[in-house]
């Protein structure tokens, strides 16, 4: 039997955070964190993602994706999926690579600027990040700029995406405390 190789664990931790709010769409990121290995500073790249659904009555055009709150990490690229897809959680590279091949369905992604999401459609923002510092790279918020109904708006998705210099098992709980606390 093939070993799946995953470990479930539960611990107790005090922390706070907030999820994104928006009138056109809501990225459904609850409090939590994703962490992936990025051993080579300046070179290791991971692709993360945030999922939501359009709540607008007309098309949304995603025009920009940026890191709103990050340390030791820089954005390499971003893409938008419209519709239902299996998506990267923590996957190596940008564009992401799975089992040495391009990520399944990646050709369906749209670049910010041209990305259109229909009313009620699912929306996933995938983004590639490079670790730049000596320690963990962390992205605490992603800013998405979009146009809907002739106006431009922004939304921030707050979560915690980590790039680990060694193993994610070394991640200490205190690193989850929001820096605004």
């Amino acid at each position: 039997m093939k070993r799946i190789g995953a470990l479930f664990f539960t611990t107790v931790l005090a922390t706070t955070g907030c999820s994104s709010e928006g009138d056109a769409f809501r990225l459904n990121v609850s409090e939590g964190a994703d962490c992936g290995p990025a051993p080579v500073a300046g070179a290791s790249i991971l692709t993360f993602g945030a999922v939501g659904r359009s709540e607008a009555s007309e098309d949304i055009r995603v025009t920009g994706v940026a890191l709103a709150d990050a340390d030791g990490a820089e954005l390499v690229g971003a893409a938008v999926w419209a519709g239902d897809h299996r998506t990267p959680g923590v996957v190596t590279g940008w564009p992401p690579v799975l089992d040495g091949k391009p990520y399944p369905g990646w050709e369906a992604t749209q670049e910010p600027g041209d990305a259109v999401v229909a009313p009620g459609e699912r929306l996933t923002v995938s983004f590639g990040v490079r670790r730049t510092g000596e320690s963990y790279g962390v992205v605490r918020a992603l800013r998405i700029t979009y146009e809907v109904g002739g106006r431009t708006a922004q939304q921030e998705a707050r979560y915690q995406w980590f790039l680990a210099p060694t193993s994610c098992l070394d991640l200490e709980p205190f690193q989850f405390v929001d820096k605004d606390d």
Partner: protein
Amino acid sequence: MRTHYSYGKYCTTYRSPGPSFKWQVKAIRFEGGTRTILSSVPLTPIQYCTDYEADSTVYKLDSNAVQWVRGASLESVIGIDLSSRTGFRTDAKQGVHYYSAGTLCGTHDTPGGSPRRLVVRGP
């Protein structure tokens, strides 16, 4: 996991102006002991799945998990079973660490949202 609690059936009497009665069933205390209940692996739509590299970790710090329709088995005593809701509080953390690449799926949403039940699958 099945656990054992004592429940009490309480009657409160009101006399203003006439008598009326309010019945309540409440858990009294945890009696100790647990038993693992086998369950089939639930279906997870592909759009609720996300892929994780080897040596990656995902943590969840909140959201409701699942509501069990017959969470408290009291039918033989009070005529109905009670539902129970499990969930993650903001002071608790659930984590999955992948020693090899795999996929994490929710039954009702992606793992980063409100998935209810999480299922770890192979690549």
